[in-house]
């Protein structure tokens, strides 16, 4: 099992990073970079893809930030291992389905991953729990600078970094934040928020990006446009105009719900707690929705803050790939639901009874 050491190690998202915070689950920046004079991965021939892979691997191996990191080639990974990496946000869905000669290098703390031969030759990603684009930018900028000293990137003074798809042209940067918005989902205001965000040239997606739904009230907000604004401007606009205002609206929605329908909110959180402690069959969607409510309970002070790290870890470990990997074999969907319910009974069973007293 190639990725086993990765899963056993402390990871940014599952325990190693800073403790999570209300509403903002994690922040991420990714940069798309391509080698000059080489066909993009989707157009390159097999031999070219292999050359690109080894050239990029060699360069990445010299990065101080990636020392003791894990180098993986997609060819060597099973279907299940690929799925687990997607669930941990270490590789994209696109890379998980890549043809041969694709790879990823994951930093020791799993906060940085560099994908090779995804849509672009290089996709550099830095991910952190909670808020903090400034820190992430300075980390990823330093990695990019070091790579730039080793590789000739395709760059035009007029169009910036040249990418396989013109939608990533210019900065090649996508900054995104994962928000937990149960308040806005309960007050049915999400549609309105999504529309407003779209008008700012930003995108709202479900947990796993394009096409995924809003299970667990988790939403990804990111910039759509990459050309015509500097990296700092994009980050600032995303922070101030979109994220800041959504967080404000989520807080208001929660305050309104707790004021007008406290029983309803308490009931939802209490039931979620009961089901997770006593359920015997839980699909990943149902489990996620209940855990999402427990996270809301922590934000509201009904559950002690120390349990946040457990809830956030379980939100990843309850997913189908992780459940199967823990079982050491591929298992059918209903058997997974049994295994998932058992895991949650054990883990959530340790959380003491909730206190709804003000």
């Amino acid at each position, binding site marked *: 099992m190639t990725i086993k050491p990765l899963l056993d190690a402390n990871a940014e998202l599952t325990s190693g990073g800073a403790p999570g915070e209300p509403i903002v689950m994690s922040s991420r920046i990714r940069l798309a970079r*391509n080698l*000059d*004079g*080489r*066909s*993009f991965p*989707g*157009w390159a021939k097999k031999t070219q893809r292999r050359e690109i892979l080894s050239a990029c691997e060699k360069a990445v191996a010299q990065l101080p930030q990636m020392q003791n990191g894990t180098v993986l080639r997609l060819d060597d990974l099973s279907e299940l291992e690929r799925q687990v990496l997607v669930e941990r946000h270490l590789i994209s869905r696109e890379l998980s389905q890549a043809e041969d000669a694709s790879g990823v290098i994951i930093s020791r703390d799993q906060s940085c991953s560099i994908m090779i031969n995804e*849509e672009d030759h290089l996709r550099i990603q830095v991910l952190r729990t909670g808020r903090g684009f400034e820190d992430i930018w300075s980390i990823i*900028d330093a990695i*990019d*600078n070091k790579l*730039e*000293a080793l590789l*000739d*990137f*395709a*760059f*035009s*003074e*007029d*169009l*910036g*970094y*040249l990418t*396989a*798809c*013109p*939608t990533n*042209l*210019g*900065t090649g*940067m996508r900054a995104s934040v994962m928000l937990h918005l149960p308040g806005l989902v309960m007050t049915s205001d999400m*549609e309105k928020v*999504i*529309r407003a*965000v*779209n*008008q700012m*040239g930003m*995108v*709202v*997606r*479900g947990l796993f990006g*394009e*096409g995924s*739904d*809003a299970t667990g009230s988790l939403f990804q907000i990111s910039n759509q*446009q*990459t*050309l*015509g*604004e*500097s*990296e700092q*401007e*994009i980050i600032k606009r995303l922070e101030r105009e979109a994220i800041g205002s959504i967080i404000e609206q989520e807080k208001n929605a929660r305050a309104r719900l707790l004021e007008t329908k406290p029983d309803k909110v308490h009931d939802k959180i209490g039931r979620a707690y009961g089901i997770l402690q006593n359920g015997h069959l839980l699909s990943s969607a149902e489990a996620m929705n209940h855990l999402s409510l427990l996270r809301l309970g922590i934000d509201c002070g009904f559950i002690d803050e120390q349990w946040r790290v457990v809830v956030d870890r379980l939100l990843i470990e309850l997913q189908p790939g992780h459940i199967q990997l823990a079982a050491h074999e591929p298992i059918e969907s209903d058997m997974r639901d049994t295994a998932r319910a058992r895991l949650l009974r054990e883990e959530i069973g340790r959380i003491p009874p909730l206190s709804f007293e003000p």
Partner: protein
Amino acid sequence: MGESLVCDICGKLATVHLTQIINNQIQKVDLCEECAQQKGVTDPEGFSLADFMAKNIQSTVGPEAVQGPALVCPSCGCTPRDFKRNGRLGCPDCYEAFETLITPMLKSMHRGDHHTGKIPHEMLHRVGLRKAINRLKDQLANAVEQEKYEDAARFRDELDQLKSQSEPPAR
């Protein structure tokens, strides 16, 4: 999930929202009533988003730009047809080869059509230097061949100077 409020063509309020699968990808189009009618979108049976996108690219640059046999990326052999089908370009040089096609798209896609972000100065310097060295090497070889030894000496001096610049700085 979220639909754009504005028409993809004219920017007015969009009321028609279409999603189709093209080449295993979900593609969305948002149109106002007027543009939807003009583009024949109102007949859902006969409408293909792929055609729409193709036509839309053509209408902005003229059909000859798309269909003209001349438009092939000299570096990778990618054509506008490949770009349309895959939604991706073949190589970095495609941007120059298909400039007439891509420039109008960028305006509607981004906030500007000019890069104002990070510039990889060190890399540009390195690449520029390497190109200059290669050019001088050619000139030097030519001068030697034509027995213009004064020129050759000058080129060699310039070359030595550039080469000393391109030595990696001590770290």
